[in-house]
């Protein structure tokens, strides 16, 4: 049986943790589109899920080659969205991590922090714009809709800011460790 869950996740690490927790209770993640997660009931803990932000859009030839390489390793691409890709691997086949050295971990944190920074700027700008608009054009339906949209954007921006700093903090720590260890 399939289940749909609508959820806004701004931190991919929390999203990954959530998908694995769902998997642990037998809710296997099978598809994602714009804040909608589709799950299928299955064996609890059958898969390990990992999320990655690729350098290019998931349909770009380089991304396609990468996803094909993953398939050769027994890693399935569950879903993609923009440059985000959701992978799963059978837990029985051993541990599953995407990055195991400092350089590749740092490169990924750098990508996701840039992504969240760009996202923050867009929603913050859009939020402020929509909140201001009703006062410039008062008294119609469109303006109250703008106000709601604007507030939602500002809430999203407020969630994206700490996410950005969380990525940057982890990246800084990894860079410091890299000075000492491989």
């Amino acid at each position, binding site marked *: 049986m399939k289940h749909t869950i609508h959820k806004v996740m701004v931190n991919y690490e929390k999203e990954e943790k959530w998908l694995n927790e769902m998997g642990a209770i037998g809710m296997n993640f099978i598809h994602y589109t714009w804040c909608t997660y589709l799950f299928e009931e299955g064996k609890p803990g059958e898969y390990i899920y990992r999320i990655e932000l690729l350098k290019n859009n998931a349909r770009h030839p380089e991304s396609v080659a990468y996803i094909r390489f993953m398939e050769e390793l027994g890693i399935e691409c569950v879903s993609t969205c923009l440059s985000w890709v959701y992978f799963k691997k059978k837990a029985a086949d051993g541990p599953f991590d995407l990055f195991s050295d400092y350089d*590749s971990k740092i490169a990924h944190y750098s990508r996701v922090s840039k992504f969240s920074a760009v996202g923050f700027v867009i929603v913050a700008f859009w939020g402020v714009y929509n909140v201001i608009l009703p006062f410039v054009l008062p008294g119609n339906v469109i303006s109250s809709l703008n106000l709601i949209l604007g507030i939602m954007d500002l809430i999203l921006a407020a969630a994206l800011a700490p996410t950005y700093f969380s990525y940057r903090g982890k990246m800084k720590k990894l860079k410091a460790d890299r000075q000492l260890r491989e």
Partner: protein
Amino acid sequence: MSDNQERSALTEAVYYILLALHNPMHGYGIMQFIREISKERLNLGAGTLYGALNTLMEKGWIRAVENEWDSRKKEYEITERGKQVVQNELLRLQELLDNGSRIVREDKK
């Protein structure tokens, strides 16, 4: 790339990938080899492996081999240049080990 950089330390992942590819292997084989040879201490990340293989190919330390039976799965093997890099790394590691054990031994006396 300068000679100087060519003689600097290899990452653990690169070192083990080069060792693995003394026999032609595909990606899955490399990961299994590294897990086994390191007694499960080192689990190579799939993305890390992909990046390392591409960089090693660009540098000419490894090459892709044509697979007659299954063209979908790409196999890789080490080149002469790659073997030389491993030789240099072994000398460097030997020096680290010799110096380390000598000084630690003297310290214990």
